[in-house]
């Protein structure tokens, strides 16, 4: 039951990412869209004016929503709606007009829009079919991760990884032992989620059994583990003799060495295209033929 609920949570989180890209902007277009220099200047303005409430790189501060947290549903989806909020504030809320001129406000808008993009917006170049072979074969990724409806359960489900993470974040997770990066989580959640850390753990029960796996969730009184046997193991803490946190993640981070440069690039090309398709709106009812 709990497991079903968790799956449902991911499905819901994935949906708005797809849906919001379809938002129609009928307002003025951002003159700086895609302009790297302007986006960089937008970041400087953002860091001067916005981080106190919205946090570093839109990950959320204490007082206002995350502007670019993975999986969140945005109130202001279009360039013109964002521009409007930046320049005029949002009446009746604690969001003030920011005192920026039009050019500056468009630059901030371009920066915030850029923050929201994930790998699927800018997929890596490479041979996707070969990357898929690496995923299931030499890379052994599928032993622990789910993708395309199959695979292991102990690691994070990668079915929508390109919809949730930036390309740089995916690359880092394959190559850096501590790969948490700016704009890649760190947000303060608003509701209770299962833990995202996939912390490796080993427990010894009072009757002497040893179970290894990753922590799905835990609190001071209980512990929920996905075992290396791909089965859930649920404990009250007083049923356990020992809980040992493994010092290292189960995830290897030397893929740039265990794969050739070409294989690595192709794996990235495959991963950066893993996105689930959200349920779209009902298709419009076909117009009756005119008689």
């Amino acid at each position, binding site marked *: 039951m709990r497991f079903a609920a968790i799956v449902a949570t991911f499905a819901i989180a994935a949906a708005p990412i797809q849906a919001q890209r379809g938002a129609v902007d009928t307002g003025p277009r951002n003159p700086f869209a895609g302009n790297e220099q302007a986006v960089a200047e937008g*970041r*400087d303005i*953002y*860091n*001067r*004016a*916005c*981080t*106190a409430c919205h*946090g*570093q*790189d839109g*990950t959320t*501060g*204490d*007082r*206002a929503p995350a502007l670019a947290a993975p999986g969140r549903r945005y109130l202001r989806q279009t360039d013109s709606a964002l521009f409007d909020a930046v320049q005029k504030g949002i*009446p*009746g*809320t*604690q969001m*003030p007009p*920011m*005192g*920026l001129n039009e050019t500056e406000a468009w630059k901030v808008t371009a920066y915030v829009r850029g923050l929201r993009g994930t790998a699927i917006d800018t997929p890596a170049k490479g041979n996707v079919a070969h990357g898929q072979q690496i995923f299931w074969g030499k890379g052994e990724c599928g032993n622990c991760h789910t993708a395309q409806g199959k695979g292991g359960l102990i690691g994070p489900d990668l079915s929508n990884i390109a919809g949730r993470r930036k390309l740089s974040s995916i690359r880092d997770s394959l190559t850096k032992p*501590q790969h*948490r990066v*700016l704009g890649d989580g*760190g947000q*303060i*959640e*608003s*509701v*209770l989620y299962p*833990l995202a850390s996939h912390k490796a753990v080993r427990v010894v029960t009072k009757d002497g059994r040893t179970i290894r796996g990753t922590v799905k*969730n*835990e*609190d*001071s*009184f209980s512990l929920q583990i996905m075992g290396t046997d791909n089965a859930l193991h649920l404990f009250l803490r007083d049923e356990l003799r020992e809980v040992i946190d493994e010092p290292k993640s189960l995830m290897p981070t030397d893929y740039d060495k265990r794969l050739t440069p070409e294989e690595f690039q192709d794996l990235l090309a495959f991963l950066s295209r893993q996105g689930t398709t959200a349920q779209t709106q009902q298709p419009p009812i076909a117009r009756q033929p005119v008689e």
Partner: protein
Amino acid sequence: MQTLLLASLVLLSASTLAAQTSEDLIKADPNNWLMYSGTYDSKRHSLLKQINPSNVQNVAPKWVYHISGSIKLEAVPIVVNGVMFVAQLNHVDALDARTGRLIWQYRRQPVSRGAHRGIAVSDNKVYVGTADAHVIALDARNGAVRWETKIQGEDVRYQGGAPLVIRNKVLVGGNSRVGGFIDAYDTESGKQLWRWNSLPKPGEPGSETWAGDSLKLGGGPMWHTGSYDPQLDLAYFGTGQPGMDFVGDYRKGDNLYTDCMVALDPETGKMKWYFQFTPHDVHDYDAVEIPILVDATFKGQPRKLLLQANRNGYYYILDRTNGKFLQGTPFVKVITWASGLTEDGRPVVVPGSEPSVQGTKVCPPTAGATNWPSPAYSPDTRLFYVIVTEGCGINIRGASKFEIRPGAPVGSGTGYLESPDVQERWQLYVRALDAFTGKTAWDYKQIGSNHYGPGVVSTAGGIVFAGEQQGNLTALDAKTGKPLWHFNTGDFISASPIVYGVAGNQYVAIVAGSNVIAFGLSGGAK
């Protein structure tokens, strides 16, 4: 004593919402939870003891009230003679505190999800700060608006702190382009009576602690409630950080009166004294954490003390008659931004600890060794209970140079992150400090909880109730910290629990996520 108390409970419940006067706020009935911190001294120590370590296993939920459309509520409910008032921004509900049944609702447009920590109640009125920077008084019996006053000033914002009623005045904090303030409004008419500004005006005492014209950058937001000593007739408030939180180049000097504890005369709004915890702060260590007022013999001398566990990692004991620093001790394992405190309580800042473009490791993190969630003090154990974050952060400034323009908001200059080092990740504890030595008496680790939110309440029954970010309301033995009971509320807890009584039964209530949940002994008082 207990029977007497119970008898008075029955009498109270028979009378319908007897008017609560400002005089009653001083002689608080322990069955009521009259203000954000329970009582003026902010001890958060309930005198009710029906629930104690011998029967806490029998505590069970009595009712749940769902506040639709809300999320991650931070409010502390107020209970007056059997009626509970609970608020979010632009939204107040009055409930039967025994059953959770709704009596009235107040809604103001637009209903907002911004942080709101509570309201104040006295003389049949509920005082509320709103998202569009108004202070309003509602009739406590039906929610009708009795008066409404716009907070004056340039770009003023009400920032969610609960108002505090002292005699005929309701004190409300806020922030504006030119700095934070406390306002006093007449409880009958809503007329503004005075304003105390947390930043001096150019030329006033304190302005010399701001280089050049940096006072214009603003700061010192007043976003949390205070405490009050009726004998000294002084109100105590902590102030927020200076403008451009993480960049100090443009505001060389101590930047008074940011990150201070201030004592205000509630009659005039004049400042009697101040003590600055973090001069020239560049880590956003707001000093708004609730001050607890305790009278005790300290180092052989009877003293009127003010206790505060500060966001900067030190636990302070001040003389609240004059603001004199008496003692300061670290209450977290690692402090990197200062190497200690001088004799007069000034931190010795470690060079190179300021935020940088590439990021500087700082312990405690900007999230704070503790933050706005409430601590408690028990006169029975003489322990100070506080929720503590162990760990470090990375503080970053967005650019090596910032263009400062008059009239434009300066913002924070950038932000902070949790340290990526596994050993420095944030972990919450309920920590009991010997209130007078600052030494840790016990620790309770809140496994899975890593960011501030919940607070604690202590009871004469010998229990500390603590919310856990991960959703548990947990009862701890006040002497040992041993967990005795817990309940999974199913949602984030970002609020501090309260204790109250109705008709002879003791209740513990917590706001969890978007629900208010009240607990009591199963089967009631036996």
